[in-house]
């Protein structure tokens, strides 16, 4: 299966996906840092804390889920176009291996984009003169937890991109489901219904004093939903007729 994974990565060569996923996060960081500089006198808290706060505002709620949507759509599109599925699936490879390998390739790109985001936060902060107490641990922790919590989003976006030929379907779902993220802070219990709100809820969790029991429920929902989507996706993919 490693072989298949490498195969999927090779397919993504020259798609400029790397360029895409680098620029957007950089943008966000750039803005956050700018804000920090502009209002430098006003901040009463630790410099790095502010940097993190400013750059993280719209990341978990919009940029992150939308990047996931675009990356997964891209990974699937390569085969939707030009009859790629019949080329790949008429070969002596197990279908569930193909499904997992593509998923892994997409996840890799997501991780890369998160890494770039993290690095640029640190770089930006340094350039803005936020001092040398670089909170590596905190940045790493925030990113790692953001990733784990967005597992349902990743799996749902992947399955939608694979199942539907039209690139509009996964994108539309991704955008529509991201909308409630803004209100997640206020809807005390309803936010559980929309997995797209989980990253922002986690991110703001400390500030809002979210009930830890709710976080546990969230964790359970994440695991259950992820398992269901993955299993359903795999089974569907194996049985589907490639017309």
């Amino acid at each position, binding site marked *: 299966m490693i072989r298949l994974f490498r195969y999927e990565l090779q*397919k993504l*060569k020259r798609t400029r996906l790397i360029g895409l996923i680098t620029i957007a996060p950089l943008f966000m960081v750039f803005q956050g840092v700018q804000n920090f500089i502009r209002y430098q006198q006003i901040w009463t808290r630790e410099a790095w804390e502010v940097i993190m706060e400013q750059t993280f505002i719209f990341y978990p709620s919009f940029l992150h889920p939308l990047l996931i949507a675009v990356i997964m759509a891209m990974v699937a599109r390569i085969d939707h176009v*030009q009859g790629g599925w019949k*080329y790949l699936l008429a070969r*002596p490879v197990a279908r569930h291996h193909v499904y997992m390998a593509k998923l892994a390739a997409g996840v890799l790109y997501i991780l890369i984009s998160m890494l770039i985001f993290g690095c640029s936060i640190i770089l930006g902060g340094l350039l803005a003169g936020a001092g040398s107490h670089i909170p590596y641990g905190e940045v790493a922790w925030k990113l790692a937890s953001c990733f784990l919590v967005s597992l349902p989003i990743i799996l749902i976006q992947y399955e939608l991109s694979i199942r539907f030929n039209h690139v509009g379907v996964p994108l539309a779902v991704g955008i529509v489901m991201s909308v409630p993220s803004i209100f997640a802070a206020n809807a005390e219990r309803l936010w559980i219904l929309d997995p797209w709100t989980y990253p922002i809820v986690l991110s703001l969790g400390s500030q809002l004093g979210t009930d830890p029991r709710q976080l546990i429920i969230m964790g359970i929902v994440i695991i259950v939903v992820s398992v269901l989507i993955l299993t359903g996706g795999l089974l569907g993919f194996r049985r589907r007729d490639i017309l």
Partner: protein
Amino acid sequence: MMSEWMIETKGLSKKFRNFTPVDQLQLHVREGEVYGFLGPNGAGKTTTIRMLLGLIRPSSGSIHIFDRELSRYRSHILSQVGAMVESPSYYGHLTGRENLKLTCTLLRIPEAEVDRVLDIVRLSRAQHKLARTYSLGMKQRLGIAQALLGQPKLLILDEPTNGLDPAGIQEIRELIVQMPREHGITVFISSHILKEIELVANRVGIIHTGRLLFEGEMSELREQGHPFIRLHAEPVQQTIDYLHTWGYPVEAVDHGMNIKADPAEASVINRRLIMNHVDVSHLSIGGRSLEDVFLEMTKGADSL
């Protein structure tokens, strides 16, 4: 291999909610032959081929390739099958060579294979250009190159000459005919163009609206046209007697006679008659053409 057939399907069917593209197909393909799968557009050829490759699940019936059931031994079987379905599939943003290397990675084949197949299909010069810049003929050849990687025992080609110019068609035809001879590869080729099949196939299967109308040797199909040899010769009665003695059924028609025999024997008959001092003034082949046979067969099965 215990069975004599390389591909055998029993009662193969595919049903959708409101139509049945393939209905109770019994195909038999022998090793080392070129099997022509013939039928008008929409007859069910592509659906059948997709089922042979595991892309579509049959609603009923079974498929045995290399004497093994497809549904159980899919990976093992497909590792020895090369295929090109409908239009060639390729990744346009990669070069021809990269596309082939990709398949090598997938199938765990050494990279040397890429050079070998590029050579066979004669794409070596264009191998470093992006696949989406290829002409239609080159794309078809790339598709065949893909199918040839890994030295498969069976080649399945769905309308490989689609959209090619005459030179291209001839090249593909030569490639196909070479396969059993020089590489020991069995070829299953589908087309809606009778002429193409006639020139390359040993055995033929004719499909129409999902059903197999005919399966057999090419010569059997020709015989369906009731070919005969038309002869004008003097003296008439003597000629008829000679022909009867040699065992040929003869029918006298105005200005000549029709001999019910395989057209291949025309020269033999001619030589024997001449050696017996008969004056032969006209010798030709008559009967319905293969085209007529085909059209009649497919028309009779279903009124459009």
